[in-house]
């Protein structure tokens, strides 16, 4: 039996949808990480006026409803919007921007938490060893790497499974902006549950593989962390 029979359409199209999903999310989360990790680290390392308000704002934005992001971005990118002349609406770039916006507070907030959990005495030991400010920042970020990786894993998981925002700004255009999640919505609406379930399984299994890799990076040199219950004790 040909695999394309199972999907009832070109296997190439399924590959295309899957590739687009991971390309959009991968680029969006990588770009967000480049910006949000340094910002979250600075937030954790330095005290300044209004820090508490900013942290509260970031924590709030971590739960930002994707459909609201999509709506705002739609209004900005639509012809009459401020960014209309860029002609980005219904393009993969618009989808990336939406996911980028949603990933920023997640990575920034969780990176901030990871940095804040570094013990003060480790910071002092590093200063005592004669570290420059830049060396201190690098050492601290390295110490917080498990938490920072967790922020990327969380942002990736949220972005790849998101549907509302990319549906609004991507438009779910066949062969162009149709992603796994938007395709699942479409096939469900059309009553093609077999196809929707198949795409769901592709989404789950590929996300699992990518998260497996990210988690490997997170734990490769230290095993699982955190408190452990003593063995043999009831």
């Amino acid at each position, binding site marked *: 039996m040909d695999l394309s029979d199972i999907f009832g359409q070109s296997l190439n199209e399924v590959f295309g949808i899957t590739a687009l999903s991971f390309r959009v999310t991968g680029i969006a989360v990588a770009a967000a990480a480049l910006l949000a990790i340094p910002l979250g680290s600075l937030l954790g390392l330095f005290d300044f006026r209004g820090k508490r308000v900013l942290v509260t704002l970031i924590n709030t934005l971590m739960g930002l409803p994707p459909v609201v992001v999509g709506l705002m971005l739609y209004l900005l990118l639509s012809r009459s919007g401020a960014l209309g002349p860029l002609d980005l609406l219904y393009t993969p770039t618009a989808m990336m921007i939406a996911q980028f916006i949603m990933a920023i507070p997640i990575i920034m907030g969780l990176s901030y938490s990871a940095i804040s959990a570094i*013990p003060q*005495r480790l910071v002092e*030991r*590093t200063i*005592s*060893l*004669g*570290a420059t400010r830049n060396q201190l920042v690098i*050492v601290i970020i390295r110490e917080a790497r498990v938490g920072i990786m967790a922020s990327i894993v969380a942002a990736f998981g949220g972005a790849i499974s998101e549907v509302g925002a990319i549906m609004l700004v991507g438009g779910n255009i066949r062969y162009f902006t149709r992603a796994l999640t938007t395709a699942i919505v479409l096939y469900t609406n059309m009553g093609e549950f077999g196809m929707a379930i198949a795409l769901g399984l592709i989404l789950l299994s590929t996300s699992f593989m990518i998260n497996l890799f990210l988690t490997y990076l997170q734990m490769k040199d230290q095993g699982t962390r955190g408190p452990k219950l003593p063995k043999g004790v009831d």
Partner: protein
Amino acid sequence: MLLLRDIWKSYGVREVLRGISLEAEGGRISCIIGPNGSGKTTILRVADLLEAPDSGAIAFDGNDVLSLGPEERIGYRRRMAMVFQQPALYDMSVFDNVAMGLRIRGMDKGVAGKRAEEALKAVNLYDLRAARAHSLSGGEAQRLCLAGAMAVEPEGLLLDEPTANLDPANTIIVEEIIRRYAKEKGGIVIFTTHNMFEAKRLADRVLFLMEGRAIEEGEAAEVLNNPKGEMTARFLKGEMVLG
């Protein structure tokens, strides 16, 4: 020579150091002894520029330390090494923890590796060099921090209760390392303790602190065997009974 003169330090309304002066020469071991909360740790933190005193002066080799700019302060810290009472370990291997100070100084990898290995052998942790630092016991962690300090070959060692977590056998090893560093390399050593016996074994000079005040200061044998002050005598007597 490291000289601290008339150091005052408060945290809010609480005065923790009240006009403390201390003179630490190379090749001689200075001990700050006193009960918990007497200001022993704070004075080491001030000497390592981790705390700014409210007033007073610090001079190292005749140079005013407190007026140094940020770059020069880093330079000063690289000439000193401090071992904290609570070991602070990096989430990396035992070896990498010891090599951290050398890496911060931009030392050649090969030389840094050799120095780190020597320091680990000196504190009996060489066999654990590949282990994760966080898997060490309290005593091993304490020795690891000492190894990290010794590896950078500092001109001055600031040790906050360096044997507090150690068993007698490791206490002997650590005390010998400190002694050799001062006597053979001519390094400056200031260590804190509330253990009179350790002070007797190691110290050349003793500063006795109580509630942030210097109660008595002088040659170790003199202060510890024939204390002039009543408070010193009472504290030492208590130590004798408890010890």
